């Protein structure tokens, strides 16, 4: 009897648990698209405030909209809430003509909303991340209900790029809130209103955000009723959900791509990461003063082999800060793998006396298995020419605390393996390389002081003729290629995977998640 009772108890518990497996999870309706829109480097889960966003714009752009936006190729900036715009010849006046649009509460979008948004974005007290980038904006005037004129105190070639990320906000809903309380206001995650094709409906804390179709969208009513952004702690969880059919889209790591490539149920989306990976030479460390040593590093690393063997070909070698053909001039040194040349350069420079085989820390925040393999390959290749680097992988806060310290310990990062966004706007790398951007002014954390490079940047930034700008950035590329402030390595591809049930779905692995013209109102799903 006892055995029967015990067996019965254990069996019934196991069966009860087993029966729960048979319980179907609630089905999503046939007109809902669910994705992991905030997974990966372009995501920023839990952030609802576009003013303080440093990423996550792919998702935010489903319900908020900027004045101007990149096209899906990330090649040109086109109108969004501005139906058109003009820039004066002296690059000091921008005139935006506004589209006929409505906020999700039915009120009209007006020039006053644009002026209000500029005021907030320029004011750091609002929690805005754009204040420093909008300091050149001298005035914003609504000349009529549908026209806004922005005047600058000095030309700012990066203004339109910045404005692609400044989402327009409703003055009638937010103007009564004290600016200092705005960043912390519950409005963002409870009742935000935008002008986009979907409107905010619900945030389930830590789980998902749900949007419903905006039938009054000026581009036409969306084809699906709902879009859901499900949160995942890591990419592996999102990939599992994609495979099990619970979601229809996620960002994936490069080494996951092979598992989806030949599967007809999925479509792999590849795009430029717009992040140039480099080995940064800390110029406060005497090891790297001699250009021959820096060149030796370039020749010693077989970038082609690493790209082929570790990245599966999904990267482009970088011989300066750019790989986009428009900014790379012909004839620059390609630093083809040549360990003998590297050894000769090191011998000429007297490397044995400079450092010899003493270990040199190579600090990085890249902590994926793939990055670990890349570091190991770099370490082995450099060891072959007599440079003994020791990779040290830390988390992002530790990396930032080390390189951004007010009084840095230079020996904690004589070398870094890092990445810096290099597009779509080419001026973006100026902050990490121009002598004028030495901390605390900028983020030239490796303390690069190379006059020819700084001069090339200054000329490019001051160029008011848009047609001449690519040629100016080619000069920047040439200066980088010659002076080697960094050992530039490559620009990798990034990937997303979408179910083939999704139709007209547009996703681009844009830096910070874009935004870009994704036209979510056209997305649909076949069940």
């Amino acid at each position, binding site marked *: 009897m006892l055995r029967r009772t*015990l067996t019965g*108890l254990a069996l019934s518990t196991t069966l009860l648990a087993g029966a729960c497996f048979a319980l179907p999870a609630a089905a999503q309706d046939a007109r809902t698209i669910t994705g992991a829109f905030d997974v990966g480097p372009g995501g920023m889960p839990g952030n609802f405030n576009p003013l303080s966003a440093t990423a996550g714009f792919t998702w935010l752009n489903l319900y908020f909209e900027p004045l101007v936006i990149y096209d899906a190729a990330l090649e040109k900036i086109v109108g969004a809430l501005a139906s058109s715009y003009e820039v004066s010849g002296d690059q000091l006046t921008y005139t935006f003509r506004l589209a006929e649009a409505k906020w999700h509460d039915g009120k009209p979008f007006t020039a006053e909303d644009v002026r209000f948004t500029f005021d907030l974005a320029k004011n750091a007290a609002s929690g805005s991340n754009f204040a420093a980038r909008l300091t050149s904006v001298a005035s914003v005037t609504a000349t009529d209900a549908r026209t806004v004129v922005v005047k600058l105190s000095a030309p700012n070639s990066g203004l339109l790029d910045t404005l692609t990320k400044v989402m327009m906000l409703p003055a009638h809903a937010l103007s009564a809130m004290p600016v200092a309380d705005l960043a912390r206001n519950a409005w963002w995650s409870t009742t935000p209103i935008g002008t986009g094709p979907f409107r905010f409906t619900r945030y*389930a804390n830590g789980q998902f955000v749900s949007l419903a179709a905006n039938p009054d969208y000026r581009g036409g009513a969306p084809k699906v009723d709902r879009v859901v952004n499900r949160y995942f702690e890591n990419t592996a969880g999102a990939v599992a959900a994609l495979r099990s059919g619970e979601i229809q889209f996620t960002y994936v790591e490069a080494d996951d791509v092979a598992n989806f490539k030949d599967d007809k149920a999925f479509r792999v989306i590849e795009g430029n990461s717009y992040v140039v990976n480099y080995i940064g030479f800390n110029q406060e460390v005497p090891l790297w003063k001699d250009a021959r040593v820096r060149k030796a590093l370039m020749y010693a690393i077989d970038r082609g082999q690493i790209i082929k063997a570790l990245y599966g070909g999904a990267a482009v070698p970088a011989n300066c800060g750019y790989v986009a053909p428009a900014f790379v001039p012909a004839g620059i040194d390609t630093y083809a793998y040549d360990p003998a040349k590297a050894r000769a350069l090191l011998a000429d420079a007297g490397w044995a006396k400079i450092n010899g085989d003493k270990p040199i820390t190579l600090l990085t925040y890249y902590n994926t298995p793939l990055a670990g393999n890349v570091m190991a390959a770099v370490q082995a290749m450099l060891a072959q020419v007599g440079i003994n680097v020791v990779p040290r992988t830390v988390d*992002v806060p530790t990396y930032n*605390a080390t390189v951004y310290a007010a009084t840095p310990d230079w020996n904690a990062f004589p070398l870094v393996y890092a990445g810096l966004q290099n597009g779509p706007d080419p001026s973006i790398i100026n902050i990490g390389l121009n002598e004028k951007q030495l901390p605390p002014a900028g983020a030239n954390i490796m303390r690069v002081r190379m006059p020819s490079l700084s001069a090339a940047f200054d000329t490019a930034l001051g160029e008011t003729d848009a047609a001449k700008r690519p040629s100016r950035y080619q000069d920047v590329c040439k200066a980088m290629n010659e002076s080697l402030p960094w050992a530039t390595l490559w620009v990798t591809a990034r990937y997303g995977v979408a179910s083939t049930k999704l139709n007209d779905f547009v996703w681009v692995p844009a830096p910070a998640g874009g935004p870009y013209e994704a036209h979510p109102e056209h997305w649909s799903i076949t069940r």
Partner: protein
Amino acid sequence: MPRTLRYALRRLLVGGAMLLGLSVLVFLLLRAAPGDPVDAYVNPSVAMSPADLTALRVRFGLDRPLPVQYLAWLAAAVTGDLGYSLQGTGDPVLPLVFSRLGPTVLLMGAGIALAIILGIAGGVAGAVRRNGAVDIGLSVIAFLGISSPAFLTALVGLYAFSVRLRIAPSGGMLTPGAPFAFGDLLAHLVLPALLLSIGHTALIMRYTRASMLEVLSADFVRTARSKGVPEFVVVARHALRNALLPVVTLIGSTIGIAIGGAVFIESVFNWPGMGLLMVTAVRARDYPVIMGAALIIGAFVIVLNLLTDLAYAVVDPRIKVG
């Protein structure tokens, strides 16, 4: 004042002092760790100037001396204000933590309940059929369960049941966008709860078996048998009740360990509980959330341990608290 109440109050007072010590320890450990919330906020590939970072530190109050920061936190905490999260839209910490406590209690409760039922049943069955096929089979299962780390069982379980067999949702607590349904919640709960229970089931099974074997050879059991008491009554009433004492102690300490296990399970299954909240907060160096969550988890464990001690008196009338 009854002795039990006096004992409970004394324990709660000591618990209060422990919480104060815990808050100091967590505060110091957080500040000793490299990087602060601003360092965690900055994407290294999207450069920001140190001047911008300094402005952010001033906004978060991180520029003030450490004792000032701690005392300001403590002064607010005693009034029930645990500050605001430094992530996202800056939710107040107390409601944020409480909103995550429910899912964790549900997951842990289900996992531990499963572990208690299966563990005690398996332990008694093993002891009664000592060295038989059932005992050996259960021992093998128990050792496998004890040896498997939570993150491994979680990943293997996710792959097997969600990705391959597709009989359980891959994560979350509810189907996003669908109306709430109890069955939906249960369907999402069962796999993480089962996986959470594995290690604890194994442990409880081994303890129960050992304790039962000891009690079954005691004189009073032999006496009961010689008096003709049916075997079921001997085991269930005489032996099991006595054997449960060390098991109750184990279950009490299991709760603390289960919180650690829940961190892994919640991360893998995106279960929106305290574990996931803590992992996200530590990654973001979200000091107020980490402090608040540690304080509330600490209070939770202190109260549960007190309840466990009080339960001794119920399980064994020889024990008097106080």
